[in-house]
């Protein structure tokens, strides 16, 4: 890599930037700045410790290395895991199909090439904001009330919001594609469906598959979470074991779940490499932008050129995967006793209409919204800021890396409400406890992402600093983090938006904003309050989504 060419004057853009100078915080500092929320947390922490459950916590940690190997326990854990995996797969598959259909239906390009109007696309997009804004847990609990306990409920609970999310991402990508190829085909008289598949299919495919893989990983986590709240599968078993303090049996289920999750993640990563798909960090911008100043570092998959005999291989393998997946899913649905038609039989509800709105207005709205936002802020700060900090801490010790990866895998996998329950053994219920539980879970997600991106990223500046005698931590901080900062923070903005939505799942810790109130209203069948809360929650998440989009565009705009 030679240095840039000699003696030419700066381009007009550079001249403009040169006049304004660099703006904002230095890149590596910005990356770890969110960890500043640790300061108030650490200040408040001693006041929250009640230490009543320290022995239990120790027992819990010790049971990690002695899980129960009783065949009965193993059997029930495996069957629970099977149900969870089945829910995840079926929910994901349903959301993929539905999402694809909705994406095409809400894409402006598709509508304008089919019949010249774009208003249906815009209308559908607005409409899809509603299912998108409500967390799958809320969907699950609502459907549970409406339909009763059915396997189809958990699957629908995952499929509805996921389909809306997939639809949004895909329709944004479709609309971001240049329309030249499509227009050319239509001019030559090709019918709309064929033209769309030919012109839009190939450029869309890598992103579709990459995002689809990410969604499957999320689906597994969501299925576990739904189980914790009683919708079946391993999550239910985990919660029961925790509440009855059967730690050995708990860890049996946990290690099994970890094995499945790692298998899934490794498998998907392998498929990504094999089918030359971009890495997930590009997801932060909804369009696949390269990571760091060296283009191609983050989208290394796309930068590789396929060998001639490879060209058909990818397509054949994908078709093979579909052919295998189809019957597998059908068999799975039968084995779990999924009856899609059961979704149409709604149980009678008390009427929503004539209730008193006074009870809705009597809720302490500013407090609820405020504490939800605060919870999200603290959890996001912890998750986004601690991941790079931990990498810095272990920088001189390569042996600590696998340990950190394992901890993060466990954090990813362990549903936040269960972390919250564990923390309650040590800490009093409240906002900080909820934020710690939510932050820990997301730390696992962000940490893994950061490690992957960091491994992909060639950091010549880091090597140069090390050659000049700088220690490994400072070299990592100055040399590597500078290049990773923008993309990582963009992903952090996206994840913060998800955390706002997820704040509901730690509601059972108490004093955790809208989440707590929602769960209370659900369990006391206060439908009018519930409706009000859902509306406010949906509005909040939509605003958060918009803010996070803006932040991402700002961060990922070419400097």
């Amino acid at each position, binding site marked *: *890599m*030679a*240095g*840039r*060419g*000699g*003696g*030419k*004057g*700066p381009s007009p853009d*550079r001249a403009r*930037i*040169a006049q304004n*100078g*660099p703006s904002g*915080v*230095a*890149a*590596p*500092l910005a990356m770890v700045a969110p960890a500043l929320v640790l300061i108030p947390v650490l200040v408040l922490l001693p006041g929250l410790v009640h230490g009543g459950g320290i022995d239990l916590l120790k027992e819990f940690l010790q049971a990690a290395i002695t899980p129960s190997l009783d065949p009965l326990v193993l059997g029930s854990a495996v069957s629970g895991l099977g149900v969870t995996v089945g829910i995840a797969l079926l929910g994901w598959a349903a959301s993929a199909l539905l999402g694809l259909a909705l994406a095409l239906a809400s894409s402006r390009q598709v509508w304008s090439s089919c019949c010249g109007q774009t208003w249906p696309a815009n209308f559908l997009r607005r409409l899809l904001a509603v299912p998108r804004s409500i967390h799958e847990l809320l969907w699950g609990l609502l459907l549970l009330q409406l339909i009763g306990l059915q396997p189809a409920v958990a699957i629908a609970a995952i499929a509805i919001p996921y389909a809306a999310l997939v639809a949004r991402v895909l329709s944004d990508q479709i609309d971001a594609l240049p329309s030249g190829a499509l227009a050319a085909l239509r001019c030559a008289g090709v019918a709309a469906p064929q033209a769309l598949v030919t012109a839009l299919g190939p450029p869309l495919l890598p992103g579709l598959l990459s995002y689809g893989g990410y969604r499957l990983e999320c689906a597994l986590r969501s299925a576990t979470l739904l189980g914790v709240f009683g919708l079946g599968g391993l999550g239910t078993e985990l919660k029961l074991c925790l509440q009855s303090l059967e730690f050995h049996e708990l860890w049996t289920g946990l290690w099994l779940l970890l094995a499945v999750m790692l298998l899934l993640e490794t498998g998907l990563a392998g498929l990504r490499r094999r089918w030359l798909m971009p890495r997930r960090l590009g997801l932060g911008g909804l369009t696949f932008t390269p990571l760091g*100043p060296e283009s191609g570092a983050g989208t290394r998959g796309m930068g590789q050129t396929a060998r001639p005999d490879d060209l058909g291989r990818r397509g054949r393998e994908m078709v093979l995967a579909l052919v295998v997946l189809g019957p597998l899913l059908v068999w799975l649905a039968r084995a779990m006793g999924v009856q899609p038609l059961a979704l149409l039989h709604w149980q009678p509800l008390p009427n929503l209409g004539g209730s008193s709105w006074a009870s809705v207005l009597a809720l302490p709205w500013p407090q609820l919204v405020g504490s939800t936002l605060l919870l999200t802020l603290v959890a996001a700060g912890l998750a986004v800021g601690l991941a790079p900090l931990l990498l810095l801490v272990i920088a*001189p010790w390569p042996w600590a890396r696998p340990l950190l990866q394992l901890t993060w895998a466990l954090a990813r996998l362990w549903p936040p409400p269960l972390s919250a329950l564990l923390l309650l053994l040590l800490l009093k219920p409240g906002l900080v406890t909820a934020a710690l539980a939510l932050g820990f879970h997301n730390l696992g997600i962000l940490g893994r992402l950061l490690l992957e991106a960091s491994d992909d990223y060639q950091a*010549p*500046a880091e*090597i*140069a*600093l*090390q*050659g*000049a*005698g*700088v*220690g*490994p*931590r*400072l070299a990592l*901080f*100055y*040399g590597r983090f*500078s*290049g990773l*900062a*923008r993309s990582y923070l963009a992903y952090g903005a996206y994840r913060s938006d998800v955390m706002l939505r997820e704040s509901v799942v730690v509601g059972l810790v108490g004093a955790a904003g809208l989440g707590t109130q929602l769960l209370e209203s659900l369990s006391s069948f206060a439908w009018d309050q519930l409706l009000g809360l859902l509306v406010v929650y949906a509005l909040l998440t939509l605003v958060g989504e918009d803010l996070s989009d803006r932040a991402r565009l700002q961060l990922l705009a070419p*400097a």
Partner: protein
Amino acid sequence: MPVAPAREPVLPNPGPGVSSQELPWLELSQITVPGRGRPRLDRVSLAIGGGERVALLGPSGAGKSSLLAVANGQLKPSSGSLRWLGAPPARSGRARRRQQARIGTLWQDLRLIEELSVQQNLNSARLATWGWPRALLNLLWPLDTAANREALAQVDLGAELLVQPVSALSGGQRQRVAIARLLRQDPELLLADEPLASLDPRLASELLQLLLDQVTPRRALLLSLHRPDLLAGFDRAIGLRQGQVLFDQLASSIGPGDLAALYDGELPGSGP
């Protein structure tokens, strides 16, 4: 006269600038680096003393970059020994970093930190001696402005560039900032890996003169050249071909015959 201590290096061909009383700034003995087919470096030995300006010549693939990578500690040879200022590379991390802080490398791809300003990049040369507090302060506040201004003045750049992000500079300006960073590090051994490769002739000769001017009796320079016609100003030239040292003699005594043997008839007139 006391017998020379066992640590004193015994060189097959000590360069003309090295006095036997003085420890060489850089010394490589029988360095071998394996490669595919033939070794990248094959029993290379050389020594450079204080105040010397040494050019490294050779066709592409000769092993010049590998030699420089061994010299600055980045590449471990499979056999042979390396000594910096008389001492081998230390085992413990901290001692080794202290040694490396005295060696400055000018990389071919410059390796500046794109996202930071020129001032912050110049200060990063001092990171080896600064602790975390100053390293963090550097990202928040302009530090050592006077020293940075002086370094920029030495490379003929104005002080208004201090606040610019490196990504906004032109190619020639970036080269100079990289040299200024080297000056801020104040190393005793300067290594440069084809720093002039992609520059136009005028800028190339200016920067070359700049680098040569930096060499004081306290410093030494080893610079790999991709073109033999830039030899003027160097004391010594080492010719490397297929991983082996072909010649190691005074620059003034290099003749067309030596160059022909080195480049095997193909003079690199048209770029690397």
